[in-house]
C-alpha cells in the first residue's frame, strides 16, 4: 500500500492548517457563506439536510486497518456512530459540526487521509477496481498508475478551476467493476501492438441529467504518455467546456456536441503540440510507487480448497457462493463484505463494524481493505483456510449477508433522508425491495440483478446504469418514482430506458416485482435479467408493468 512521503504529508498538513484558519474566519464573521462555501467544498464539507457532511477521499478505494479504525473513531467522536460508503468509493459522515471539521481533518492527516478534491469543480478521487492486485483476471496492477494520477492531479494549478467536476476511473480487467464508462475519463490497461501494456482511453461518460456512456478516443496509448494525453483531453475541455451553463459544463456534453471523432481530432492535435515539450515520463516516481504495491508475502504451496466439513454449513456455503471471488494466488480468495443486510441502509457501517473490519483485515488480509462502488467492502487477500473463521467473525457482527450482485445488493444514494438536493427518499425504496425479495432461494433463483436508486436526477445512485433503475422525482410536492430498465455499469455498459409514468413508493416496489416476474417467465436457462431484456426488448416488460 502506498505510504506518504514527506511531500504528501506536508501538503495535507498544510491544507489542514489553511482550512482551520478559513473556518475560524467564517465563524468569526470575516468570511460570508458565499466566500466560504467554495473553500469548504474544496475540503469535502457540504451542508446537508440535518448537519454538515464530510466526504473523505479513499484513493482508488484502498484502505489499511489503521485508516479504517480512524474512520471508526471519527464516526464515534464527531458523527453519530456510523459512516456511509458512496458510489465513488469514498466515505461520508452525515452529522458533522463545522467547528469540529478542522480537527477531523487533522486526525485524518495522521493516517494519510484527507478530503481534498472530494467536491467542487476539481479532479475528484480516482476510482479503480476494488479487486486490483488480487483479481485473477487483471493484466497488470492498476494501482501504481492510479496513485501516479492522484499525485499529479492533486492541486494541479492548471486543472484547479475547471468548468465542472471531473472524474477518472482506471481498470485493468475485461470485467469492469468500477463503472468506468460512466466516468469523464475511463482508462483501461491493455496490451499494445508490441506487447507493452498501455492504456485504452474512453472519454465523456457520465450520469446526471444527461447520461452518456464514454466514447472511445484512443484504443492504445503508450504508457509513458499517460499524463500528457490526459492533460490534452482536459485542455480541450478547459478551453471549450460550457462554463456558461452548469447543466452543459461536463466534458460529456462537449464530446457529445462535437462528436467523438471531432473531439478526438482536437485532443490529438492538442497533444501533438504538447509532445515536443512533454516533460520526461516520471519513471523513477512510478517505480518508487510500484514497489509499494508489491504483492504481500503470500504463502506458497497452500491447498487451493475449502475445508469440506465447514462448507457443509449451508449459511457458510451460501456466502462462499456469492461473496467470495477467485484470487490470482493459489490458496487465497477475495472476500466481499456486504453492507446490505436485510432491513439495513445500503453502504452504512457502524463505528464498531469499521473497527472490527480493521482487526479482521490485519489478521486475515495483509492489512488491506477496499471500498467498492457498489457500497460494499472487500478484503482482498484471504487464505482459503481462514475463510470459515473470517465468516464466523463477520456473521457475529451482522456483516455476512450473502447477496453480492443479487437483487438485494442495491446501490442507493442517501436521498431525501439526508441530501439537500433530493426530490424523494431513496433508502426506504431499497429497503422495501430488499424485504420483498428477502427469501434467499428467490434471490438466488434470480441470479445477478443490479438495482440502482437515486433520489434525484444527479444520479449518485447510478440509476441510469441499473439493470433496473429507480429515480425519485418531486410530483407537486409528493415523492414519485420513475422506473428504468436495461442499463449496465459494467463492461457491457448501457443506459437504462424509462418505462413510462411514475409510481408512488409502494407502487414502484410492485412494479419492480412485476418486472422481475416477467423476466422469470421469459428467461431461458441460466439467462440473466439483463440478457433476457436485451433479447426480448422493452415491450414485454412495459406490458407487465402497466398492463
Amino acid at each position: 500500500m502506498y505510504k506518504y512521503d514527506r511531500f504528501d504529508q506536508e501538503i495535507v498538513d498544510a491544507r489542514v492548517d489553511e482550512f482551520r484558519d478559513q473556518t475560524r474566519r467564517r465563524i468569526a464573521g470575516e468570511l460570508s457563506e458565499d466566500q466560504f462555501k467554495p473553500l469548504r467544498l474544496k475540503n469535502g464539507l457540504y451542508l446537508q439536510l440535518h448537519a454538515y457532511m464530510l466526504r473523505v477521499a479513499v484513493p482508488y478505494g484502498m484502505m489499511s486497518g489503521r485508516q479504517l479504525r480512524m474512520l471508526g473513531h471519527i464516526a464515534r467522536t464527531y458523527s453519530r456512530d456510523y459512516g456511509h460508503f458512496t458510489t465513488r468509493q469514498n466515505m461520508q459522515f452525515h452529522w458533522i459540526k463545522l467547528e469540529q471539521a478542522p480537527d477531523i481533518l487533522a486526525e485524518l492527516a495522521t493516517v494519510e487521509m484527507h478530503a481534498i478534491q472530494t467536491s467542487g469543480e476539481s479532479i475528484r478521487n480516482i476510482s479503480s477496481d476494488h479487486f486490483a492486485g488480487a483479481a485473477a483476471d487483471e493484466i497488470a496492477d492498476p494501482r501504481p498508475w492510479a496513485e501516479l494520477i492522484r499525485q499529479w492531479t492533486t492541486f494541479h494549478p492548471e486543472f484547479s478551476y475547471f468548468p465542472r467536476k471531473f472524474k477518472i476511473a482506471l481498470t485493468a480487467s475485461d470485467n469492469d467493476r468500477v463503472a468506468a464508462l460512466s466516468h469523464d475519463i475511463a482508462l483501461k490497461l491493455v496490451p499494445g501492438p508490441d506487447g507493452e501494456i498501455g492504456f485504452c482511453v474512453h472519454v465523456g461518460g457520465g450520469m446526471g441529467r444527461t447520461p452518456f456512456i464514454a466514447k472511445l478516443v484512443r484504443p492504445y496509448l503508450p504508457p509513458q504518455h499517460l499524463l500528457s494525453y490526459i492533460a490534452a483531453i482536459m485542455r480541450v475541455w478547459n478551453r471549450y467546456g460550457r462554463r456558461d451553463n452548469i447543466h452543459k459544463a461536463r466534458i460529456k456534453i462537449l464530446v457529445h456536441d462535437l462528436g467523438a471523432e471531432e473531439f478526438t481530432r482536437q485532443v490529438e492535435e492538442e497533444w501533438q503540440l504538447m509532445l515536443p515539450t512533454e516533460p520526461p515520463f516520471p519513471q523513477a516516481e512510478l517505480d518508487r510507487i510500484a514497489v509499494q504495491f508489491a504483492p504481500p508475502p503470500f504463502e506458497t504451496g497452500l491447498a487451493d480448497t475449502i475445508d469440506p466439513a465447514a462448507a457443509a454449513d449451508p449459511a457458510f456455503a451460501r456466502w462462499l457462493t456469492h461473496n467470495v471471488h477467485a484470487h490470482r494466488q493459489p490458496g487465497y480468495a477475495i472476500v466481499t463484505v456486504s453492507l446490505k443486510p436485510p432491513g439495513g441502509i445500503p453502504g452504512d457501517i457502524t463505528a464498531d463494524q469499521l473497527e472490527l473490519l480493521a482487526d479482521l483485515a490485519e489478521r486475515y488480509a495483509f492489512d488491506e481493505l477496499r471500498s467498492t462502488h457498489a457500497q460494499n467492502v472487500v478484503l482482498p487477500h484471504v487464505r482459503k483456510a481462514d475463510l470459515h473463521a473470517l465468516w464466523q467473525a463477520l456473521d457475529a457482527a451482522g456483516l455476512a449477508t450473502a447477496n453480492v450482485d443479487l437483487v438485494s445488493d442495491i446501490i442507493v444514494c442517501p436521498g431525501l433522508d439526508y441530501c439537500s438536493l433530493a426530490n424523494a427518499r431513496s433508502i426506504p425504496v431499497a429497503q422495501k425491495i430488499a424485504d420483498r425479495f428477502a427469501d434467499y432461494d428467490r434471490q438466488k433463483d434470480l441470479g445477478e440483478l443490479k438495482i440502482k436508486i437515486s433520489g434525484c436526477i444527479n444520479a449518485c445512485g447510478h440509476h441510469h446504469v441499473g439493470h433496473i433503475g429507480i429515480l425519485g422525482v418531486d410530483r407537486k410536492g409528493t415523492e414519485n418514482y420513475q422506473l428504468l430498465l436495461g442499463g449496465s455499469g459494467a463492461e457491457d455498459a448501457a443506459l437504462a430506458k424509462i418505462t413510462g409514468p411514475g409510481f408512488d413508493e409502494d407502487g414502484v416496489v410492485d412494479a419492480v416485482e412485476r418486472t422481475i416476474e416477467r423476466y422469470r417467465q421469459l428467461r431461458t436457462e441460466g439467462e440473466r435479467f439483463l440478457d433476457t431484456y436485451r433479447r426480448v426488448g422493452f415491450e414485454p416488460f412495459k406490458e407487465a408493468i402497466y398492463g
Partner: protein
Amino acid sequence: MKLLTGNDLKSGAVTWWTGQDWSLHVEDAVDVGEHGEPILAREEALRRVNTPAIIDAVATPDGPRPAHIKHRIRALGPTVRPDLTLKPADPDAGGWVI
C-alpha cells in the same frame, strides 16, 4: 403560514425562528407572515444561522407543519433512522413526516 428556517452556523443543526431566537424544534416556530426577509438578513449577518430560508407551513393543533416533505424531514430527522430523530421514542413521529 410562513416560517424561517436554516442551519446553525457552527453545528449545522436545523433551526427554526421563534420570534426572538432559533430553536431546534419546529413546534416553537412562529408565523412571520410577510416580514421574514429583514429578519433573515439580520440573523445571517449576525451569524446566528446559515443559509436561512422562508418556507410555507400549515398551522395545526400540534404546531406548525412544513408544507414540503423536505422540511418535515429536516424538522424531525432521517425517516430511516428513527433513533437519530428528535423524537426517537415517538412511534407516530414518522407519520407526521409522510
